């Protein structure tokens, strides 16, 4: 049996709010294998984002553990977690989170700096990723000169530039119109077809249905975990 790429073991996240304890995640154990395309669904406050942040090692669980590629993360210090995020996880955010007044090329190259890659190789790898995203003509554009869809493509290029094992996308279409959303989802499907493991957080059923597996959260617990039966496959 192969090791799951992501595995959570009795994952709990609690917050103390006004003297009481709120369970954002109340004991979640699940596994995601390499090559999967998973959508995590749920209403606002269901715990889906908290779950994603812990899988992405941005947030630490109150108890339980997250294993990435078979490695337990609960004992890691902040530097080890930073290295893990850098080498194994690519993030895509709702608000793109590109550095302003910085070219697309330099934005994409940022993770490679923290990986210690030399300047020439950084530029080369960032350029290739942007070209793969169809942005070969926009290398020197700052985010302000790009459309929302283009900005999200730059962000996806940045997430992929370190060749991570896992792509985490938090509401990646939340700031885009429906047509651009479709384009971005098509891009994710293409990336998944090429072997990338993708975990996507969304509150929209239509977006979630682009994935192959749908996990639904409510009140910090998984209430449904099933393959998407009527999957929306975008044809270019």
């Amino acid at each position, binding site marked *: 049996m192969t090791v799951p790429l992501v595995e959570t073991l009795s994952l709990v996240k609690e917050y103390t709010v006004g003297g009481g304890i709120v369970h954002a995640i109340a004991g979640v154990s699940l596994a995601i294998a390499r090559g999967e395309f998973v959508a995590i669904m749920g209403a606002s406050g269901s715990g889906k984002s908290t779950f994603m942040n812990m899988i992405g090692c941005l947030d630490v669980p109150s108890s339980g553990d997250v294993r990435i590629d078979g490695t337990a993360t609960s004992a890691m210090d902040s530097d080890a977690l930073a290295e893990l995020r*850098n080498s194994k996880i690519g993030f895509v955010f709702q608000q793109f989170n590109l550095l302003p007044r910085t070219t697309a090329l330099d934005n994409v190259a940022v993770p490679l*700096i923290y990986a210690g890659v030399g300047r020439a190789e950084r530029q080369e790898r960032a350029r290739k990723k942007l070209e793969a995203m169809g942005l070969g003509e926009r290398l020197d554009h700052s985010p302000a000169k790009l459309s929302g869809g283009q900005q999200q493509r730059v962000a996806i290029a940045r997430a992929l530039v370190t060749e991570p094992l896992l792509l985490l996308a938090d509401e990646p279409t939340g700031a885009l119109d429906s047509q651009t959303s479709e384009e971005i989802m098509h891009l994710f499907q293409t990336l998944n077809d090429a072997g990338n493991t993708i975990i996507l957080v969304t509150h929209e059923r239509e977006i979630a249905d682009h994935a192959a597996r749908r996990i639904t959260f409510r009140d910090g617990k998984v209430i449904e975990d099933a393959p998407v039966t009527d999957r929306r496959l975008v044809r270019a």
Partner: protein
Amino acid sequence: MTSRVRKAASRAAFNLGIALTALRVNLMRSILTTLGVSIGVFAVVLAVAVGSGAQVSVMGAINSLGSNMAIVFPVPDDESGGAVAERGRLTMRDAVSIERQIEGVTAIAPQLRANVQIVSGGRNASTEAIGVTPGYAVVTNAATETGRFISDADVRTAGRTIVLGRTVVSKLFGDYDPIGETVRVNKVPFTVVGVLEAKGSNLGEDSDDVALVPISAARQRFTSDLPLGPDDLRVLFVGIEDGVNLGKVKREISRLLRDRYRVREGQGSPFIIRTTEEFMEESAMVTGIFQAVLVAIASISLLVGGIGIMNIMLVSVTERTREIGLRMALGAKRSDIRNQFLVEAAVLCMIGGAIGLLLAIGAAAVFQAQADFPVPIGVGTAIGAILFSAVVGLLFGGWPAIRASRLSPIEALRTE
């Protein structure tokens, strides 16, 4: 190992790039923040320069006395108290025995001094007349611009010859060459035989406001009202060879004089001996304290500038919390975030320091031209100012930078 070094260098270069971009983006704010550091560095550099200038001036004053020498003078009556063998005195015979018996002595310059009024034509000048022997020229490096110095024959015959300092010549004759003219010194006619080379002024004291006459003539004409014995001196300069231990010569002169005056063991000496070395050390100490006080006061403005830097860095960290979260998500370690803000603060301060340094160099040039007082800004001071600015940046940027690095990635990312 080399790959680690390359990694570190790559990250450092990158941090510098981020810092410069951040500073450019908030250009106006950067300039205003920098101003505080500029003023601080300006004040500190000027303080150091004025302090060094004072040092240079004092050393110049001491050097203009002559190179290596000991100055011997009798303890004034009122200071000797009852502890000395007899009233302090120093005679020509003492001077001669010092010259003959002590090794390393190049020449002696026994002196009498009196304030006199010199009149020529309708003009007059108040100055100090010094009764000297030819040895004075040797010991004090004095030379004549025109004419000759006081000669042995002048001293032997108590000749009424006089050598004038530049300032006195200007007062009495203007540009006219006074050699051969007769001047009246306290109503006694003297013939001008020479004019001294100008030595300039030191610490407000004009070294050229002086007139030299034979010591014998001074004794006869100007010091008759003073309670001096027929052979007494007011002061004796002892010229000493280069490379000779001044402390040793001083002890030998002291022993010689104590023997001559039969001062018993444990009794205070009736004379005081000072060497140029001691003058140097003392003035170095005094000007050093002067400089330290100036720099301490100036440092307060740099402190204020540093607090400005800290303030603006805290604002910068708060404004860019989301960016910090993003960088952490992309793999930045805490040390990367910390260094990014440290570099930003250091660069900001170094730019401020450079501006302050340039202002100080300009001010020093103006000051020097106006006040005729040296205000040297050395290369060391310049480099020191820039490095010190960087240290201010690291010090005051340190807390904001550490605060930034301690942020939790997810909380930073969530910040709007």
